[in-house]
């Protein structure tokens, strides 16, 4: 197990360095003077400019500059926003919970619907239900979610008036941020009106963001279940006279879940891509919207730091999934 963990860790290090190289190169590849990019495009006095250049090590060879950059990262310095003058890391941390809340809700919805749908489709192979699930899943998989989000708004907010169009909570409510998750904070403060409002704001963007993972999970669960249901040990389980729910829900599902969990884990990257779009449509104050706004404002330090932080988190989650995969698969856990 330890060796398994270590190999995974050694694999992620070069990838992480690759991402830092990319973000490091980004600022230098953007046309224009890096100092002006980092400090905003204002007139800077010659002496101040040179001072900055020395401070940033920009007078040093490029490799030394990269080493400085890595050193800064190691000390948690991810740059400072040109516009707000606050450190990128603290901005990221204050916005990150909103994205996590949205993404977790989305993936929960996707699992809660996709998993049973895939299982039933596999058990009732070639039934009307199966064909419906597969058709819906292929459509969901092909869905431009920025459009899908708009359709949901059009239907539920504009036409039916059930849910609000944007934001995390109605303006009249205020909840002291403790965890940063509005739902949790509202519940802990006992503000049930705020909780309701937060839930109403959350459900539509989460549904939009969850659509593609839902489609992927349903498809994967179905094909994985179909494969497992043909295995010899399923016949053994049935030969024991076990009830069907136990054969399908325990013996088959436990094995079928192994690839499904990997796929769910791999959705984290797709989820972040989706969050960028969903947050923009629903004005959800998370890191996706923040990144897009920063690009529009040419706030390059934020783009640089934000991309690195977001990519690192995706890689960390993927690593965790990899390790979890080892935990649920006894062949890896006990084997080597």
């Amino acid at each position, binding site marked *: 197990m330890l060796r398994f963990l270590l190999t995974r860790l050694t694999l992620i290090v*070069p*990838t992480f360095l*690759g*991402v830092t*190289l*990319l*973000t490091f190169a*980004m600022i230098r*590849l*953007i*046309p224009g003077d890096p100092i002006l990019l980092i400090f905003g495009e204002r007139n800077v006095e010659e002496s101040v400019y040179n001072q900055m250049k020395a401070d940033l090590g920009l007078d040093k060879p490029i490799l030394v500059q990269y080493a400085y950059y890595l050193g800064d990262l190691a000390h948690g310095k991810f740059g400072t926003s040109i516009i707000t003058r606050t450190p990128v890391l603290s901005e990221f941390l204050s916005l990150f919970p909103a994205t996590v809340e949205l993404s977790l809700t989305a993936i929960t919805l996707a699992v809660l619907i996709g998993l049973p749908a895939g299982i039933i489709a596999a058990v009732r192979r070639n039934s009307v239900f199966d064909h419906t699930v597969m058709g819906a899943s*292929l*459509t969901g*998989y*092909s*869905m*431009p979610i*920025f*459009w*899908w989000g*708009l*359709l949901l*708004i*059009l239907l539920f907010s*504009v036409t039916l008036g059930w849910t609000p169009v944007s934001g995390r909570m109605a303006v009249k409510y205020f909840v002291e941020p403790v965890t940063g998750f509005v739902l949790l904070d509202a519940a802990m403060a006992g503000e049930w009106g705020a909780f309701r409002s937060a839930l109403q704001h959350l459900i539509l963007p989460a549904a939009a963001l969850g659509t593609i993972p839902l489609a992927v999970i349903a498809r994967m669960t179905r094909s994985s279940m179909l494969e497992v249901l043909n295995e010899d040990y399923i016949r053994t389980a049935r030969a024991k006279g076990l009830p069907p729910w136990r054969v399908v829900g325990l013996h088959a599902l436990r094995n079928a879940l192994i690839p499904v969990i990997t796929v769910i884990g791999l959705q984290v*990257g*797709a989820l*972040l*891509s*989706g969050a*960028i*779009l969903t947050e*923009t*449509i629903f004005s959800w104050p998370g890191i996706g919207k923040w*990144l*897009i706004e920063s*690009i*529009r404002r040419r706030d*390059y330090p934020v*783009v640089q730091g934000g*991309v690195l932080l*977001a*990519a690192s988190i*995706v*890689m960390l989650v*993927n690593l965790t999934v990899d390790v979890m995969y080892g935990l649920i698969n006894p062949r890896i856990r006990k084997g080597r």
Partner: protein
Amino acid sequence: MATDAGAIPAAAHSAAPPHPLVEFWRYFRQNKGALAGLGVIIFLGLVAIFADVLAPHPPAEQFRDALLRPPVWQDGGTWRFVLGTDDIGRDILSRLTHGARVSMAVGVFVIALGLLVGVVLGLTAGFFSGPVDIAIMRAMDTLLAMPALLLAIVVVAILGPGLFNAMLAVSVVVLPGFARLTRAAVLTELSKDYVTAARMTGARLPRLMFITVLPNCLAPLIVQATLGFSTAILDTAALGFLGLGAQPPTPEWGTMLSDALQFIQRAWWVVTLPGAAILLTVLAFNLMGDGLRDALDPKLKR
């Protein structure tokens, strides 16, 4: 089963096995979804080629007397603008028609570039093991580790917004998939006898790479390229929607959507139609990609 039984005497009569393409078509034809996808793709291709003839109006022409005109079947609609007009009076049908041209061009360009660079990198990594292989594959891992849209955003941040830069960005996104696939296929093929035979006859490296080995790796690449079309179209549209891709007044579907955002409460058609066009196109390529995979993957053949 019954066809098997019938096939035995039939096979005994016809001396030559069917041409691989004929056999492929036989499998592909059985998949109705894939056929429908192919149909839609051919249709879109024709629309893209003949957009100038098919579109009733130039895509950027503004009819100041007909702002936000609804489609013909709604009150206030007119046959002059079958699918209505947008906020500055441009004909939606014409813009959608030219949008098909943009999207198809995007797909072709992105896949061609991604395929070209990816295949060369994959072949190089597969043929030269050691540091070259490691360097290429670690770089590909890095690109794959980044969420697709995030990576595209980094590239657009460097190059600046615009349709061409967005296409370059999406090429970078799809490239590692092709590189990995090629490398894996090359490694399998390299261990086979025909490669050894070609080597012994003194084939030079470029010939070995491109003439001997590459054609045998094509099947998975074709499938990946078809599925990649949908990624290319979807991601470029997403960039357009975010304002980082095609810029107005380019009739690109994603850009049309982002222009229409503010009219969502008043004019459903400016929002619904471009998105439906994207969905239809992406769905068609996904359906056909699935069908191709089933028809080309020898493991699934009975």
